[in-house]
Every structure is written in C-alpha cells, then in structure tokens.
C-alpha cells in the first residue's frame, strides 16, 4: 500500500521536477549556511568555516543526485532523457528520419489493414452485441446433407427450453422487387418476430417486429435495409408507413435498419416476418429454417447442449417419423460462420504482409548501419565520458523505437485509408462470411499497431545498437574510423542485405505462384469456352403448376433458339459456377459395396436435351436426353463419368436403376441411359462431382438457368432476352444475366482479390529490397571515397574500381538469392498444402522471379557504383 503511495508520489513528481529541484537547492543552501554559522561560532575564520561546512556536508552534487535517484522513477527519468536526445538526433538527419518513417508507415500500415481484415473474418465476422452468447442451431440428419430446423421442432424447443434468453429463426428469401421500372430480384430474410431482439440489433427508424407479427395473416410488414431505403426512398424518414411490392404482394414498411452491423450475412435488403400457417406449424420434415439463439447470462454452451439434447430426445420419441436419425447441432454463432477456408486466407494475407514488414525492418537496420560512420564518433565520446554499454544500447534502442512509433503513427493513417479502400473494393462474395459494413480500424487494431511498432523498432534497431554500443572509446577517438570503415560493420550490412533479398525472393515466388495458380483455376474447364456462353436465371413463383412451368419453359426455349446467332440453347436447374448446390441421397437397385456410412449420393441436375451439346459435354456411352423423354415415358437419367466410376466401377452404367431416397419410398425408379464426360462445377472443387442428370420434362423445376451458346459475343442477346421474357410475363425478373466466363470470374473474385493483394505486397517487397541494396552501395561508396581516390591516383582502372566496389553487393545479392530459392522451396510446399490451386513447384516461376529480382538488385547496385568513376583523385587527396 505505501509502495503504491510512494509510486504515485514519484509519478506526480515527474511533473513538478523543476520546483522540487529548486526547493532542494534552497534547503541545501540553508543547511550549509547553518553549518558555517556553527563553525564560525567555534572560532574559525570565514574561509575555514566555509570549507569545514562543505566537508561536514559531503559532496553537494552527489547528495543532489542521490536525492534525485531516490525521489524519481529511475528508468523513467532515463527514458525521458533518451527520448529527448533521440528527437534531437533524428532532427539532425531529416533525410534518414523521413525514409525510415515512411518505410515503417508502409510496413506497419499494411499490417494493421490486414489485421483489421483478418480480425473481421476470424474474430468478429458479425458485429452483434454479446456475440459470445449467440449460437446457431440446426438439425442434422445422418442420411442427407440438409441442415436447418423445422418449424414445429423450433416451436417445441422455444416452449421447452430454459437456457436461452431468446430463440429465433430466419430463412433467406429472394423476392422480386416490383416497381415502375425493371423489376429485380433482391435478397431478403423472413424472420420470427423475436429475431432482432435475439441477435441484439434493431431498426434506427420506425420499430422492430412485435410478438404476433409473425402470425399468418399479419405478416405484410417489412423492415428495410439502409441501402434499400436509400435506393427506393432516397433516405426519407417518412418511408415508414409506405408500401413496398415484394413478389407481387404489398408490404408496409415499419422500420429501417442502421447502415452497419447487419445479420444474417449476405447484405439482405429487407426483413419480413415469417408467416407461420397452421400447416407450417406442424411441419417437422422440412428443414427450411435456421435457428439462432441467445444464451442466458452465465449459461455455457455445454449446459445449453445438455438441455436441448434432453428435449430433443423426447421430441424424437414423440415424433419418430421425422426426428429419428437426426440430432440438434448447437455451435457458437461465430464458429458456424468462420470456415477453415476463410481463416486460412486471412492468416495467409497476414503472413505475407508480415514478410513485408520483416523486409522493411531489415531495410531500416541496413540504414541504421549506414549511419554508423556519423554515430560512431558520438557514441565513442559518450562511452569515454562514462556511459555504460547498457546505457548506450538502451539509448540507441530508444531512438529506434521512437522511429518505429512515429512510423506506426503514420502507419495508422495509412491503415485507415487502406481499410476504407478494402471496404469499398472487397468482392461481393466476401459478405457471405463477414459483415463487410463493419470493417474498420478498431481498438484491437490500434493495440496491434502499437505492439507491432515496438516489436519492429526493437527488431530493426537491435543489431545496429548492439554493434555500435561495443565501440571502443579510445580507438574511436584516436583514429578517424570512418575513413577505414570497419570490415565487421560491412559484414553486418552485407548479411542484412542478404537476408532482405532472401525474404523478398520467398515472398515474390509465393506471390507469383499464387497469382499463377488462381489464374489457372479461373480459366475453368478445358474446352468449355465460357466466353461464348450467355446465362441467366428465371425464378417462377411457387404457385405455378408443373404444367404452367413446363409451358413457360418450352415457350421460352423455342423463342430463344430463334435468336440470330444462337448456336444452341438449353436450360438447367443450376449451371456450373452459379453456386447451385444439391445433394440427393440415392438408393441403388442392386446393392454395391460402398462403406455403410457413405450412402451413395449425387448432385441432381435437371437439364434440357441440348444441355450437353451447349456445354460441350461429350457423350461417353449410351445416349443423351431427347424430346421423347416425357412424364409419360420411362423415367431416365444420365450420369457423369465420375459417378459411374464411383458406383459401378467396372461394369457399364447403362441400364442400371436407381432412385432418390425418401421416407415414403415413393420416388420412381430411374434408368441410366447414358454416361457423359465430367465437368467442373465450382472452381474450388478438388475432384469432379457425381452428377445425376435428369430430363427437365419429367420434373420441371421452378428455378432455372438458361444457356445460349453463341458464335460471337453472347452479350449481344441481353436486350432481346429481356424483351422476350417481358413479353411472356412482365412481372418476372431476369437474374444474373452474364456470360459464363463472367460467372466464373465472379466466383473467383475473392481469389483474384487475394492474388492482387499478394502481388501488391510482392511489389512493395521488391521496391524495399531495391532501396536496401541501393542504400548499402551508396553508403559503402561514400565511406570508401578516400580509398578509391588513392587507388585511382595510383593508377587503378575505372572498370577495376567499379568491380571492386560492386563486388560486395553482388556477393550479398547472389547469396541472398540462393538462400531465398532454398527457403522458397520449403515455403511454397507449405503454401500449396494450405491453398488449393497453388502448386509447390513451377520451373518458370523459380527461374523468372529470381532473374527479375537479380536485375533489380543489379540496377540498384550499378547506379550508385557508377558514381565512383566520377571521383577526382586529386580532390580526395586534397581533403586529407
């Protein structure tokens, strides 16, 4: 307690040092005067008394220093001196200071920006209050990949649980937004009335849903996203109370959400209440909803799991038909969003940018060494005056940390701008794994910046500080050391440049491999020629009967095929690269030997007969579909090569029968009539999927992708396509009208974005290392000016001198390149195992990148070296 008090008073003393010092002076003066009086009284002469008083008192200065040491926090006091001194030193060499601060600012700023992004993706993908208490809740079936929660099970859990403060459900709902102009499809969400209070956000204008809003018949209310509100109501607060037309129905606007912190992900445009009909309330089969719950304070995830498991068991007993084979999966909301894949990319970017900072630190260390010639003298004097080595070391480190902190401050500004840039340029699909709107430099990022600045200050300053502080005072004072630049100094600097080149090479090779690998992924399937394919999506309202759907589709297909320049037209329930997903569990007529836990499954694709021809999918065996496959004929299927291989490896697939698994066992048997070539479905797929093609005539889907293969630029059809559809049905929105090539690059946009970032960091590394080599050369030449002058006076050839001067930098560079290649080999192996699509070895990259780096380093060496030839021997000798 009293130590705390003392510390406080010491701390207080820091701010009134001058006054304390002055008081001490007065106190001592009185003390000496009183002593003197005393001695005078004893009969001494004035002079004797004065001396005697001094003797009795002891050293005045020592006493003062003891007093100071006692009253202050010693290290803080020293730090204050060091900082003040450092500022003076840095002020003296402005050029050096500016270069170092800019380097630090770029390195630290880039790191903070990437940290902010990684923090968003990994730690706070959604900005919801009390995120740690939010969980996602989904039923998981052991027989299919479907996930979600059924309405009836949700309602039962809602009543029975005691561990959740709130338990809500939501469901994504794409709806056509009607209007005077072009109708368009927008993503919205249907939510239970307690949804916003569960996730902890609420409208800023208007009101939240209230209990009962989600009852059937009362659900024609909508809460708008900020963006939607701006777009349709020009941010007019009186929008509340107006109506919006969604999928042809009128909804009353009751509220508007804030621009930031939105849930669920995907930047929805609006939220409407889930209309729970009586039918829906008893639905246990369909897993159409997603559950999100807020745990009560103090309840752990485990406790909640325990309770829900108990309730689930009784639900499974009461409703065995629906609920057996299923379990309730409860995970933290964050964990349900943050996928390994995203985590890896985020960490990869941080790693890359960390490399850049390491290179920057090496660079700065080189610059610090370059200042050796100026500083050595000064340090020697300090040492000669009695400063301990530790004192000098800490002084130099203080200087270095001060620089890095200044750099960090500048870096914060850099990071704020870069993060703003990131927020505006991040590809759209990023919003599916984090809430991009809440991306900003936050307190965590600020703390990270400060920490990073201190670490890089130590990192860049330790080696030079260690080296200088060793300076022998006597030697440095007697010889003009800067003329005969110490060879050990040069060794250090060469080692740093070697390190820098090696690091830069590793980074550049990694970047090149990533860029190249992603480019390969993005070109898609060989032979597909996606740039001559036009695709668009049409969603028909669920209310249409299969006959109506069929009629519409046939009509549209035949109209499209009459378009001038359309080679073929087709439709499919989901074309490749369109994020279409399906997994259908299958029953085979003749059992095959697969593992029990791996029931056969495939992705079902409903296609028109011309689909294969349009997509350039080759026929391997049997036949394609044709117009004769109708609901009244034999139910047929065509399977992909991989599927045939997986299910009936040795035998021919033709004639095999299979059907989709369902509880009623009512699905019809399908006969395989053809085997077709494999096709990539997603750019991230590591192997070909099992695809089960079904003729659309036999089961017309409501949601369809159309394809037009064209001889020339397919986008020329865009206008005609819209016109044709408007003539067929003026309320239908046309979605994703694009070339397939465009779809592929949209799907790859995140990858491309990462590639661009990594390439950018690679270029930054290249520039930094060029600066490093240049600084090494320029400085060593400045140091050896005198020596070169003498050599030239003695008759050395210019080319000879040039060679001598450049040799060291060349050696450093080539050693760096060699080490870099070896390191890169190890590094890229790791990279390729982490990131799909990146190869560990690529001969072209491993040749081209080192050559480019070598050329850059050579140029950075040659430019300053050329200056030696202009050295006038006479002038240098005269300087002696």
């Amino acid at each position, binding site marked *: 307690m009293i130590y705390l008090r003392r510390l406080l008073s010491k701390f207080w003393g820091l701010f009134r040092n001058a006054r304390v010092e002055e008081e*001490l002076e007065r106190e001592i003066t009185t003390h000496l005067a009183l002593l003197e*009086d005393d001695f005078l009284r004893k009969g001494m002469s004035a002079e004797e008394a004065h001396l005697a008083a001094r003797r009795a008192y*002891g050293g005045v200065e020592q006493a003062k220093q003891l007093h100071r040491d006692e009253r202050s926090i010693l290290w803080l006091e020293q730090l204050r001196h060091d900082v003040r001194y450092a500022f003076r030193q840095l002020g003296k060499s402005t050029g050096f200071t500016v270069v170092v601060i800019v380097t630090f600012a770029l390195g630290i700023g880039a790191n903070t920006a990437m940290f902010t992004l990684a923090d968003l993706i990994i730690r706070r993908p959604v900005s919801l209050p009390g995120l740690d208490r939010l969980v996602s809740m989904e039923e998981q079936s052991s027989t299919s990949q479907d996930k979600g929660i059924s309405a009836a099970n949700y309602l039962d859990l809602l009543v029975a649980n005691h561990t959740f403060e709130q338990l809500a459900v939501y469901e994504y709902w794409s709806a056509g937004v009607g209007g005077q102009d072009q109708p368009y499809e927008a993503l919205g969400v249907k939510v239970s009335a307690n949804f916003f209070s569960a996730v902890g956000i609420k409208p800023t204008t208007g009101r939240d849903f209230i209990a009962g809003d989600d009852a059937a018949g009362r659900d024609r209310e909508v809460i708008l996203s900020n963006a939607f509100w701006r777009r349709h109501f020009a941010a007019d607060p009186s929008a509340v109370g107006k109506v919006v037309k969604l999928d042809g129905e009128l909804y009353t606007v009751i509220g508007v959400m804030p621009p930031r912190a939105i849930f669920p992900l995907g930047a929805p445009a609006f939220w409407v209440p889930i209309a729970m009909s009586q039918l829906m309330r008893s639905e246990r089969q369909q897993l159409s909803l997603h559950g999100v719950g807020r745990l009560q304070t103090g309840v752990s995830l485990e406790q909640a799991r325990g309770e829900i498991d108990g309730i689930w068991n009784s639900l499974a007993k009461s409703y065995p038909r629906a609920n057996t084979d299923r379990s309730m999966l409860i995970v933290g909301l964050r964990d349900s969003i943050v996928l390994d894949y995203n985590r890896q990319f985020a960490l990869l970017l941080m790693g890359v940018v960390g490399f850049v900072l390491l290179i920057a630190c090496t660079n700065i260390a080189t610059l610090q060494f370059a200042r050796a010639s100026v500083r050595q003298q000064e340090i020697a004097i300090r040492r000669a005056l009695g400063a301990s080595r530790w004192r000098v070391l800490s002084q130099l480190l203080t200087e270095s940390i001060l620089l890095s902190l200044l750099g960090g401050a500048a870096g914060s500004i850099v990071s704020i701008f870069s993060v703003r840039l990131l927020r505006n340029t991040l590809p759209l699909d990023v919003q599916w794994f984090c809430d991009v709107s809440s991306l900003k430099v936050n307190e965590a990022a600020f703390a990270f910046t400060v920490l990073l600045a201190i670490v890089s200050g130590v990192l860049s300053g330790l080696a030079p500080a260690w080296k200088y502080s060793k300076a022998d005072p006597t030697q440095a004072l007697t010889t003009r050391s800067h003329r005969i630049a110490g060879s050990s100094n040069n060794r250090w600097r060469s080692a740093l440049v070697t390190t820098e080149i090696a690091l830069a090479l590793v980074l550049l090779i990694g970047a090149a491999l990533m860029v190249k690998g992603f480019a390969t992924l993005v070109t898609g399937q060989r032979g597909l020629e996606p740039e001559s394919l036009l695709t668009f999506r049409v969603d028909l309202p669920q209310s249409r009967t299969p006959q109506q759907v069929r009629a519409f589709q046939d009509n549209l297909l035949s109209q499209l095929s009459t378009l001038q320049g359309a080679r073929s037209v087709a439709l499919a329930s989901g074309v490749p690269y369109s994020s279409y997903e399906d997994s259908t569990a299958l029953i085979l007529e003749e059992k095959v030997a697969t593992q029990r836990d791996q029931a056969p499954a495939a992705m079902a694709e409903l296609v028109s007969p011309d689909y294969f021809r349009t997509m350039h999918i080759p026929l391997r065996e049997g036949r394609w579909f044709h117009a004769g496959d109708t609901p009244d004929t034999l139910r047929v299927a065509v399977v992909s090569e991989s599927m045939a291989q997986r299910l009936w490896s040795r035998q021919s697939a033709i004639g095999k029968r299979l059907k989709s698994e369902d509880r009623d066992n009512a699905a019809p048997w399908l006969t395989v009539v053809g085997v077709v070539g494999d096709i990539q479905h997603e750019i991230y797929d590591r192997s070909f999927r099992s695809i089960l093609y079904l003729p659309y005539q036999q089961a017309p889907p409501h949601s369809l992708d159309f394809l037009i293969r064209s001889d020339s630029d397919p986008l020329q059809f865009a206008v005609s396509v819209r016109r044709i559809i408007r003539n067929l049905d003026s309320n239908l929105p046309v979605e994703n009208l694009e070339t397939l090539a465009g779809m592929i690059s949209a799907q790859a946009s995140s990858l491309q974005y990462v590639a661009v970032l990594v390439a950018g960091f690679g270029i930054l590394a290249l520039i930094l290392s060029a600066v490093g080599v240049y600084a090494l050369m320029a400085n060593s030449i400045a140091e050896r000016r005198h020596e070169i002058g003498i050599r030239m006076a003695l008759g050395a050839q210019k080319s000879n001198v040039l060679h001598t001067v450049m040799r060291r930098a060349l050696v450093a560079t080539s050693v760096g390149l060699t080490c870099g290649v070896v390191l890169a080999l190890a590094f890229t192996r790791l990279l390729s195992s982490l990131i799909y699509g990146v190869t560990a070895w690529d001969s072209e990259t491993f040749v081209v990148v080192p050559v480019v780096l070598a050329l850059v380093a050579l140029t950075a060496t040659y430019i300053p070296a050329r200056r030696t030839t202009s050295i006038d021997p006479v002038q240098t000798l005269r300087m002696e």
Partner: protein
Amino acid sequence: MSSEEKEPIQLLQGTLDLIVLRTLASMGAQHAYQIATRLQQVSDRLLNLNQGTLYPALVRLEQYGWIKGTWGRTESNREAKYYAITKAGEKALNQETLRWRKMAGLVERLLLEDFQP
C-alpha cells in the same frame, strides 16, 4: 543504498529512516540541519555520517507519507524546510520500533548462544 561506505560504523539498511522518525517524534518539527546535529549528539560522534546523505531518507519518508515538510524561518531568520511526523508516520514508527526490538533481541540472543559453549 544511501548509506556512505567510508563510515566507521555503517548504518544498517532502513535504520536511518527509523532514527529520523524517532527524532522528529520526540523533538517536534525540525529542519535537516537540526536533525543532522541531533544525530551527531546522540550518537556521540560515533556515527559520523555525511549530512548530505540525510536528504534521500527525508524524500523517501515524505513519499511514504510518514513526514511532511513545510517551509519556515529559523531563529537566525533563514528560510528552512521543517519536517514534522504525520499520523501515519507515528504508526509506522511504532511498528518499526517493535520490529527493530525484535530483530535486535534476536541477534543478541544468537550472539550470546554462540559464545556460551
């Protein structure tokens, strides 16, 4: 840390604080010179410490909050800082005195034992 090395009798760590506190407790407010003089009288010049070494002890005690300095005038009309013991100082003095007695007693007993056999 603040005791002088050249002294014939070296002060034990922390004892200077105790002595200063004791002096102020019995004599009332004193300035540094008075305290130093008093120490010399009491110690019979055995403890001939440099008077300057008193200052760190004074600042330490002040920071603990055990004594408090106020500026005043001496009889010879010189300005001087008078130190007085505070309430907390008196409490600390009692504790320190007890501790010192225990310590001294213990050392004494040990020394006696050592010489007996």
